[in-house]
């Protein structure tokens, strides 16, 4: 190890261009790969308030169309009504908590004692919501099951929103005007990032089966299946997601029975969805989600970001080895096997790759945690989407970075190392 570092320093001094090119190209490659990796991981690794991502399933859409024998040609899909959501997702086996919420936040005008009217990203949630998503309390409490069931007007605010409305987070019991209705503030929670698409919000408004806001009324059919409701499921530890899907699929039959008089039936699209699907796979309410195109695109990017620099690094290493043929000859003369030559060169190169990797990863982490433009999409424009540091820098990220370095090292060092091992010691020693 020490010898290999010495060799690197020696090369930096005696072959500066080639050594620096190697280092910079490695760092750049690792930087960009890790930025892409982190962009993707922020969508799937658990972080507060979505610490539950590994066990989270979301039922978010329903799709119905006219049956074949029907004369109409109706086809509709949207979010769920409260009743449809309950029919499909309430009391499933293997589910610890089920919460009915609005799938996305909505900007709603509020006014507190400070007198200023301003819009907050609001989400309507029931009492179970806080059993699934972790929103650390700063003051007060979460919703009770009673408040949720009887639609008692109460809200929970995020810290910054509470300060803006009341000038303090000590505002339990104060009245907040939400869209010109008065609500009682019962809790204040920590601020959260809108990158948590299912669990985030600046204002949580209590909701329940009787909440008129959760009812769109009838649109396409007499059986009211469409609405703004999504069902968030916290699956019990160790329970297979497929077993939940099987139960849900069976429950679609209940809705089909309800729709039968109108000559309509549901179309099942593999609901409910896991975090990766929620984050990258949704393709509208009338399609089966598919993360594969995003994944293929990502793998193509990884391949390009690895292979193109690897060709360069390979040629740089080849150049460095050409300068060291006589050394390789001497080593061979003194009993170094071919295999040892290969492993030594790969190990030596791995150190350079790792140093480049550390630089690249550090830059990547700084970039990914400060530049929120990385995660912006249409729905998040203008909201707080800075990722939690834990979502960007964690053992998983480091592990992936080391893995990427290893792969980059292998594909760039393999050919030059093999060529070096085939060097004829006699010619190598005589070469000058």
């Amino acid at each position, binding site marked *: 190890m020490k010898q290999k570092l010495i060799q690197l320093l020696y090369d930096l001094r005696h072959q500066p261009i080639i050594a620096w090119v190697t280092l910079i190209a490695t760092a750049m490659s690792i930087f960009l790969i890790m930025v892409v990796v982190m962009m993707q991981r922020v969508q799937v690794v658990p972080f507060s308030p979505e610490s539950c991502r590994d066990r989270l399933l979301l039922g978010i859409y329903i799709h119905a169309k006219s049956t074949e024998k029907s004369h109409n040609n109706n086809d509709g899909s949207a979010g769920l009504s409260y009743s449809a959501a309950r029919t499909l997702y309430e009391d499933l086996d293997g589910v610890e908590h089920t919460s009915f919420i609005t799938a996305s936040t909505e900007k709603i005008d509020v006014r507190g004692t400070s007198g200023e009217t301003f819009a907050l990203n609001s989400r309507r949630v029931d009492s179970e919501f806080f059993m699934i998503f972790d929103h650390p309390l700063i003051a007060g409490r979460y919703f009770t099951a009673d408040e949720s069931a009887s639609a008692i007007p109460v809200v929970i605010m995020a810290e910054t929103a509470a300060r803006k409305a009341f000038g303090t987070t000590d505002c339990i019991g104060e009245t907040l005007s939400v869209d010109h209705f008065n609500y009682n503030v019962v809790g204040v929670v920590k601020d959260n990032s809108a990158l948590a698409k299912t669990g985030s919000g600046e204002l949580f408004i209590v909701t329940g089966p009787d909440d008129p806001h959760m009812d769109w009324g009838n649109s396409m059919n007499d059986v009211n299946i469409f609405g703004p409701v999504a069902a968030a499921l916290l699956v019990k530890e160790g329970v297979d997601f497929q077993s939940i899907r099987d139960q849900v699929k069976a429950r679609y039959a209940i809705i089909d029975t309800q729709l039968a008089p109108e000559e309509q039936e549901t179309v099942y699209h593999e609901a409910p969805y896991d975090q990766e699907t929620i984050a990258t796979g949704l393709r509208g309410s009338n399609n089966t989600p598919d993360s594969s195109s995003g994944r293929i695109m990502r793998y193509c990017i990884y391949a390009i970001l690895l292979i193109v620099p690897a060709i360069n690094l390979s040629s740089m290493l080849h150049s460095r080895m050409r300068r060291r043929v006589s*050394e390789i000859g001497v080593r061979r003369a*003194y009993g170094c096997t071919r295999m040892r030559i290969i492993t030594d060169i790969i190990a030596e190169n791995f150190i350079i790759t790792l140093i480049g990797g550390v630089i690249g990863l550090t830059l990547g982490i700084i970039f990914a945690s400060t530049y929120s433009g990385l995660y912006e999409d249409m729905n998040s424009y203008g909201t707080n989407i800075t990722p939690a540091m834990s979502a960007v820098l964690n053992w998983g990220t480091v592990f992936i970075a080391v893995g990427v370095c290893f792969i980059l090292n292998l594909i760039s060092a393999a050919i030059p190392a093999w060529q070096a091992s085939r060097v004829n010691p006699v010619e190598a020693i005589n070469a000058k």
Partner: protein
Amino acid sequence: MSIITLSGINKVYRTKEIETTALENINLDVNPGEFLSIMGPSGCGKSTLLNIIGLLDKPTAGSVTLLDRNCNNLSDSELSHFRNKNIGFVFQSFHLIPSLNVAANVELPLVYRSGLSAKERRERVEKVLERLEMSHRIKHLPAQLSGGQCQRVAIARAIVGNPSIVLADEPTGNLDSKMGAEVMSLLHRLNKEDGTTIVMVTHNEAQARETDRIVRFFDGRIIG
């Protein structure tokens, strides 16, 4: 009872157009503890012969027996291990590794030998450098040494693993006469004190005459 036995060695280099015979029917026995010098004009095949004895090159025909072991059919890694244990090399242009300091250069053969701890290796390196009066240069890089000192380090590297055979290819060729004489006396000392068998290629008649036996080469053949 010879330590090196070459019988019927031929070496032919072939390219598309021409075929060059470098060695023709060489038979040679070297006894344990012998200091042998090989002489001959440039391009007569003496370096090729040394490489064959050193198992760096394979003869086109004939057999090489070192320490009673026939080396013709050893695999590449067996050859590596054999060289590592039994043969030391000294080159005309030293071939010290420029990025490594003196200690690390000397340590090289031990690195490729299993079963030695870092501490044992260091002790052996220190011991051999002390013996060759190079201890004060242990941390220096080759570029900071004179030619004579470089060759001493190279000799230290050749003997640190206690090989039975040391092969020296014009060890004084790049040195002035004073330094050359020093290096020669060092080789004689090793030969006497350790009983190491030394095979040396040289152009220097005077140096050759001091050794136990001279083998003369001309056009790939032994002529005396």
